[in-house]
């Protein structure tokens, strides 16, 4: 009986999450496009719903809600479904939509989609070889094999994003780094931009007029008979067409200049707005927090180095350590069990909420920056895949933050994974990323949207409310303008417009 009640509760919550994912998709991600393939929306919402259910089960574990057998059952069920979706459904649809975009392969879409899927499975399997993932006693398609690989990918992603967040956060939030921009600077740039546009226009007018005159002369000349006409046209029009090509080259250079000026002006405007924002109360509050956060980021980098150098993996979680410290050193006596449950619940809850929110914000930014009407389906599915893998691996890593008695279910369900390996891997990637993005301007400006995970609740103007999520446009627009400005870049093939 209680199993039935529990199942009903779980199912209701899953439906709720599904609805939230659906709404998010429709209103935020796809607000500029028409949804023509509903299967994409369904797959995205399903991935989101099952990922959130996993987090919900952890919370229930801590709170002790629902009976433990039904929790165990739902864990297993959830895990199977999410692995099924992440490994079979989403990659297949990604392959299918990519193939549909290519005109040559339109006829045998299904066949090519299957080919793509098999290639994906092959590389996915090969991924597990270099890592000390698990003992050889388990079979091929066991859950541990699949989860371990998904875990590796997801943990890499998390560490990448955390690393960038740690470096980028002080840069964005502290006004120390803001250049001083005055109105006259902006006006001067705008004037230059308009002047460049005027020069382009006048050169194009010359080209158009010259062409028109050439046609008029050309028509007259075609009336002359054969050979003379040909010779005359050769001698008299060479100077005209040479002139034309010269002017055309100048025009191309001027157009490139105008693009650069436009981007610079956008930058200056954005900086000016940030300066204005930093003078408001909200801005000052976030600036203040930015200092604290920089210290936290520095500490985290330090701890990561120590963990690797001294080959140490933390045995106890922060909650228990915190409680130990208070009890032993500060002499405050309180009921350890009671408080540890509540504190770990709050801590884990905060981590979950901020990571979900951070993920959704970053996904939205990336989506606005990269997508177009042709590639929007593929990109949404890729984002759903990333989201699923990220959530699965955050469950793995979260195990560290929970006290011992709550870790059991995670350990039980996920089998004999080498959890320590994942923590070490996370630290390594985190450090590598930090070292490689030390050059602030270039790396950070290109990867601005990658603020993530730990730093998400300081997103400033992007406060999340339930229905109207946020406006991450500014940074994604900056990213898209920068990426798009190099027209010959290999990242922008011409059919992806």
């Amino acid at each position, binding site marked *: 009986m209680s199993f039935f009640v529990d199942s009903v509760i779980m199912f209701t919550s899953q439906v709720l999450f599904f609805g939230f994912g659906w709404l998010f998709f429709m209103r935020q991600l796809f607000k*500029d496009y028409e949804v023509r393939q509903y299967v994409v929306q369904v797959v995205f919402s399903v991935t989101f719903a099952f990922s959130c259910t996993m987090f919900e089960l952890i919370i229930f574990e801590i709170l002790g809600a629902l009976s433990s057998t039904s929790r165990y059952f739902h864990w297993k069920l959830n895990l199977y479904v999410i692995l099924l979706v992440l490994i079979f459904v989403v990659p297949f649809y990604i392959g299918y939509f990519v193939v549909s975009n290519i005109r040559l392969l339109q006829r045998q879409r299904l066949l090519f989609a299957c080919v793509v899927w098999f290639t994906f499975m092959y590389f996915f399997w090969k991924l597990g070889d270099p890592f000390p993932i698990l003992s050889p006693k388990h079979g091929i398609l066991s859950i541990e094999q699949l989860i371990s690989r998904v875990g590796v990918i997801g943990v890499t992603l998390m560490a990448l994003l955390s690393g960038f967040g740690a470096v980028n956060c002080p840069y964005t939030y502290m006004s120390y780094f803001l250049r001083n921009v005055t109105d006259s600077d902006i006006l001067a740039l705008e004037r230059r931009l308009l002047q460049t546009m005027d020069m382009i226009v006048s050169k194009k007018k010359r080209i158009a007029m010259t062409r028109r005159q050439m046609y008029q002369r050309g028509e007259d000349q075609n009336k002359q008979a054969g050979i003379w006409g040909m010779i005359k046209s050769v001698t008299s029009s060479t100077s005209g067409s040479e002139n034309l090509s010269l002017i055309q080259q100048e025009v191309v250079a001027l157009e490139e200049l*105008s693009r650069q000026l436009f981007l610079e002006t956008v930058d200056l*405007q954005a900086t000016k707005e940030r300066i204005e924002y930093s003078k408001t109360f909200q801005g000052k509050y976030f600036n203040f927090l930015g200092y604290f956060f920089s210290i936290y980021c520095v500490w985290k980098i330090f701890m990561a180095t120590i963990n690797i150098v001294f080959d140490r993996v933390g045995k106890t979680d922060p909650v228990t350590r915190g409680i130990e410290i208070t009890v032993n050193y500060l002499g405050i006596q309180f009921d350890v069990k009671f408080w540890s449950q509540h504190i770990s619940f709050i801590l884990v809850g905060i981590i979950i909420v901020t990571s979900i929110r951070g993920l959704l914000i970053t996904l939205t930014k990336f989506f606005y920056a990269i997508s177009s009407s042709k590639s929007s389906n593929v990109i949404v599915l890729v984002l759903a895949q990333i989201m699923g893998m990220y959530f699965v691996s955050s469950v793995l890593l979260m195990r560290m933050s929970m006290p011992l008695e709550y870790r059991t279910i995670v350990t039980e369900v996920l089998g004999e994974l080498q959890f320590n390996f994942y923590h070490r891997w996370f630290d390594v990637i985190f450090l590598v990323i930090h070292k490689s993005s030390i050059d602030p301007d270039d790396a950070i400006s290109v990867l601005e949207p990658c603020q993530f995970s730990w730093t998400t609740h300081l997103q400033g103007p992007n406060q999340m409310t339930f229905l109207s999520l946020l406006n991450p446009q500014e940074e994604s627009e900056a990213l898209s303008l920068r990426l798009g400005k190099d027209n010959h870049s290999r990242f922008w093939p011409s059919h992806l417009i």
Partner: protein
Amino acid sequence: MASLDRVKVLVLGDSGVGKSSLVHLLCQNQVLGNPSWTVGCSVDVRVHDYKEGTPEEKTYYIELWDVGGSVGSASSVKSTRAVFYNSVNGIILVHDLTNKKSSQNLYRWSMEALNKDSSPTGVIVSNGDYDREQFAENPVPLLLIGTKYDQIPENKRNDVLTRTAFLSEDFNAEEINLVIEKRYFTRDPSQVRICPDYGSLCGTET
């Protein structure tokens, strides 16, 4: 040459609807072979004989200013774009017939161009309610162009045409549905041919 009068026309619309292709077609009489994302604004010029064949014939330079970006851009991008909207003689609004949202966004584009943009940022899809009075005293003529008609499946074409008829009524604008047909134009840049009924397409005369 420079003594000819100039006419400045803005070409506005969502990302990817075909503005750059349209401008290239109108000015170079060719199909654009490798379209790429417009950053900022790209201008092209067409020499046009107004009232050709009549005694009042006059030649004009028509400048087509193709402004890139989306209607929901950040305010820094919008204020930079506003630089291009000065002293405009006409506006061409381009929308994609295969994408309903691009038609809905046209209202916001026209508001932005006419400097009447008062909607808050971050607002989700509008359902098309807007005030016709704002356009009543508008001295700037508008032309609506719908692209990619050939990509709509046969059975849905009538619905699309009805929808666009309502749209152009709202704007009190002239409407053209443009199909880029290969048989009139070639992609080889060294060969340029002028299509005979071409002159009637560029109808922004006031």
